[in-house]
């Protein structure tokens, strides 16, 4: 049986990759992708703990997270398309309407 710590390490690595992606990438689509990675790192944790603690609630949460992530992507992509239509770019450095 695979020990719990393996799952936690995997999910930590995934989460850190997501954070780094959000912080350093400039393509807004990749940033969204990285956010999905962070959410899925959390999902791995939910599932692993659910299995080890014999509690089904964690797996139920995963569905919620997936549902939220899906709807978020829908809205996010819609915003991105609108932005692209107006500015012809998806580089976040160039989208600086709110800067001083």
């Amino acid at each position: 049986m695979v020990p719990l710590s393996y799952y936690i390490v995997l999910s930590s690595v995934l989460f850190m990759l997501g954070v780094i992606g959000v912080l350093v990438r400039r393509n807004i689509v990749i940033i969204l992708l990285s956010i999905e990675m962070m959410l899925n790192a959390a999902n791995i944790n939910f599932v692993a703990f659910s299995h080890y603690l014999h509690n089904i609630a964690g797996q139920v949460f995963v569905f919620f997270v997936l549902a939220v992530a899906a709807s978020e992507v829908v809205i996010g992509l819609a915003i991105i398309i609108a932005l692209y239509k107006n500015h012809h770019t998806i580089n976040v450095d160039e989208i600086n309407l709110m800067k001083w």
Partner: protein
Amino acid sequence: MNSYILIPLLPFLAFIIIGFFEKQMNGKSHLIALPAVFASFFLSLKLFLEIYPDKEIVQTWYQWISSGTFNVSIGMQADALTAVMLLLVTTVSSLVHLYTVGYMHGDRGYDRFFGYIALFTFSMIMLVMASNFLQLYVFWEAVGLCSYLLIAHWYEKETAYKAATKAFVVNRVGDFGFGLGILLIFSLYGSLDYKVVFSRLNEQVGKSVDLLSWIGGGQSLQIDIMTLTAILLFIGAMGKSAQFPLHTWLPDAMEGPTPISALIHAATMVTAGVFMVARMHPIYDLSPTAQHLVMVVGSLTSFMAAYIALTQYDIKRIVAYSTLSQLGYMMLACGAGAYTAGIFHLLTHGAFKALLFLGCGSVIHAMAGEQDLRKMGGLKPYLPITYWTFLIGAIALSGVPPFSGFFSKDEILWQVFNSGFGGPIFWGIGTLVAFMTAFYTFRIIFNVFHGEYRGDSEVKHHLHESPWTITIPLMVLALLSVSVGWVGLPFEGMNLIEPFLSQVVGAHHQEMDLALQPILVGIAILMGLSGISLAYLFYMKRTDLPARISNSLKPLYALSFNKFYIDEFYDAIFVRGSIAFARGLWKGFDVLIVDGIVNGVARAVQGWGRQMRYFQTGQLQHYAMGMALGIFIIVSIYLFL
């Protein structure tokens, strides 16, 4: 309702009506002011006859303040002193009103002028009628206000409004002392009523106050309470009656129209100080120190003013300095305790000084505004009435018997000679001043009316005697200048004014060497006559002499011509001093410190904001980085510390 309330009320009503309907008056306001003032003159006469020889009428017209035991009413305390003053004020005011009709004819501010002189008359009447210190103080300030308004009558002229401001400011200095004196009286006696205060003066005799106790640390300056009260009140009198060192405003007040000069100098404002000292005589009688101060200030003013008058060229200024000098005489008498003599001189002076001023006005009127003695001369044939009346005034001022000035001046000199405190010295100063007075008065006469005409030929063409509205007051005043003195003939049983006034201000009992009196009187007459003769010699016979003497006595001449440099001194110390002080406060304190703090705070916040806005990038990733770093730091702390 009694008729006496109308004495002040009629001029006041005239002022109100003229004030409200000034635009509709169109030079007709004398139709309102003249009857009002003449009516109040006749009512004053009626009051005088009712009081004479030994009555007193006290009336309360209006309860002004009534709070617990503190009561102040507006009313009338008509005793001998009030009656005499009232008669003087209303007589001169009526004549000045009449004179104004002719003198101010065609002036743009004709109606305004009438409104103000009516208010001036009202204020002075209320001042002399006052029965308490507060009423006195209120109308004391009111005459100050009126003088300010009237001196600035030609307010487009720079010298006029500057002179008005000067009069106002210098009087504030005196009034501050006067106000303090009244506050002191109230704090000591708990009442402002003359009768209450005077009846309780004995409670405070011999007590003293420590003027330096507020510093602490064992410093002390004990001063007798009576002396302090008297001196504070006298500071007010110094301002109003233009005594040294607060005299500088009076000559400058000549910038106003001539009728107002006459009114200020003869009957209203400047006499208020002398009147007040006489009114407060119970306080002064209890403080020899204050009396001596009054004598010193009076004689100093009297001498300095006469000395300055010797060399001035402006006809009105000479007469103004003469007023200063004569007021000094009155103060000298009051200081010596001879209040009756002081008020007697006030009365006679009121007549001949009003005459001289109105005479000057008539000359200036004829000369189309010219006031310089050097540009006059030989006016006698053109202005016969003015000449003869002016001559009568001049003789009265010079103290030649039997004109009125002689009797009052002589009474003062005699009383002063017999006063305990340096009598003969003050008498000597007074006699010298009498000599100078005669000299400068006749200097005017000879320079204006005799000799060759030295002025503009254009002006000479228009020389003419003044209209009847001007000459009638001159003639009435000339009559008074001759005769008023006879109420105080210095013979047993013939002196009417002294027993009458002494009921109020107290008889003056002193050891007198009656054998000396004829000698002193002789010297006084001699002084007056020799002053006149000297003026005749200087300005009629040897006209080269004045220039030669002034050249050989250059410093003395300069001192007189430049009025002892007192104006320059005040300008350097007080005017420039306070300007420098204000500028220091402005540049040093306000701009540097106050504005510095206010702007500094604003600038600091602004700078902080300028730095802080770099954190507001609008870049989501920067915020996320911030969050991540924050989480990292918090988790690190949680885990490792």
